[in-house]
């Protein structure tokens, strides 16, 4: 199973800043190994975020995103105690969901 994400969500005023670190290889599919063979693409394709279960963000990612990617976004109307959920799905169909509480 994929390694967990690190999610931090901090409220300030009427919005919360969410910072997410995902553990993923993000192999672009353009690199070659020592034997000269192409390393197959393996990267996150879909990222979604929810605020108390309600979708607030959805993104389509490609091979240009870095290894162990960092994502930051702002959720309007989120306050301390609210739940922020983040899910990613990669091109191999593997998926990982984690949740954090806004502080």
């Amino acid at each position, binding site marked *: 199973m994929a390694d967990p994400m*690190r999610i931090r969500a901090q409220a300030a005023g009427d919005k919360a800043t969410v910072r997410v670190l995902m553990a993923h290889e993000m192999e672009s599919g353009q690199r070659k190994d020592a034997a000269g063979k192409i390393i197959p693409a393996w990267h996150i394709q879909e990222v979604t975020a929810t605020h108390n279960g309600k979708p607030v963000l959805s993104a389509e990612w490609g091979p240009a995103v870095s*290894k162990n990617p960092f994502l930051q976004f702002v959720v309007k109307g989120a306050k301390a105690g609210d739940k922020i959920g983040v899910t990613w799905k990669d091109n191999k169909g593997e998926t990982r969901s984690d949740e954090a509480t806004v502080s």
Partner: protein
Amino acid sequence: MRMTKALALMALATLAGTPAWAQKSAAVQSIEEYRAMLQDGNPSELFEAKGEALWKQKRGPKNASLEQCDLGKGPGVFKGVFVELPRYFADTGRVQDMESRLLTCMETLQGFKAAEIAATPFGKGEQNNVTALATWLAAESRDMKLKLPQSHPQEKVFYEVGKRLFFQRGGPHDFSCASCHGQDNTRIRLQDLPNLTKNSGDGVGFAAWPAYRVSNGQMWGMQQRLNDCYRQQRFPYPGFGSDATIALATYLGVNSQGSASVAPAIKR
């Protein structure tokens, strides 16, 4: 005669007019901005989380956790141990750094073969776990001041041996560690080179490792950092956890005594 004097004065004036070393160039400033941006969201946090889980997880032939590992402050103490390593351990009879000590614990508590792990290349198999554990343990001592013990005779010997290794020149480039890290205000391309022969300050040099390398997406411990220094000098690789690497680490650590450790840090 007067002419030469005037010329000399002009030359001096020109020298004074050029940006001094102390002044930071625009390039260095933008590199620092880039580093500050990376600081928020340092992927080493992912390795910290992994290391913490590994510490508690029952693993290995003996199906045991590392929670009884003695890192210098008694079995199971993990807060503040990182800033007091390398140190002398009576049970093994040698000076050990964080990574070699973890190998000892993995062998005695969990039943892994330390020699086998030491022979594994960096970034493969159990080596990844050793790095993750060292990353988490470094984070448990974040912002604490380096306080390496120097009371045992062996610890003093390691400092002296480390100093000699630091200045030892050799290899096809006739290089020593001191060739790059022996004076102030030098750099390779855009990388500032800390002067490691003296206290280089909070979070610089020894006080910044383990660190996450953005350019290759790898987490590096001090062992790999030193190994790579030897690679750059075109020396043969030192053994993982060898006395030579621990002596060098002792020398660097004692030189930075009193500076705060910011590890796990983030690097270009």
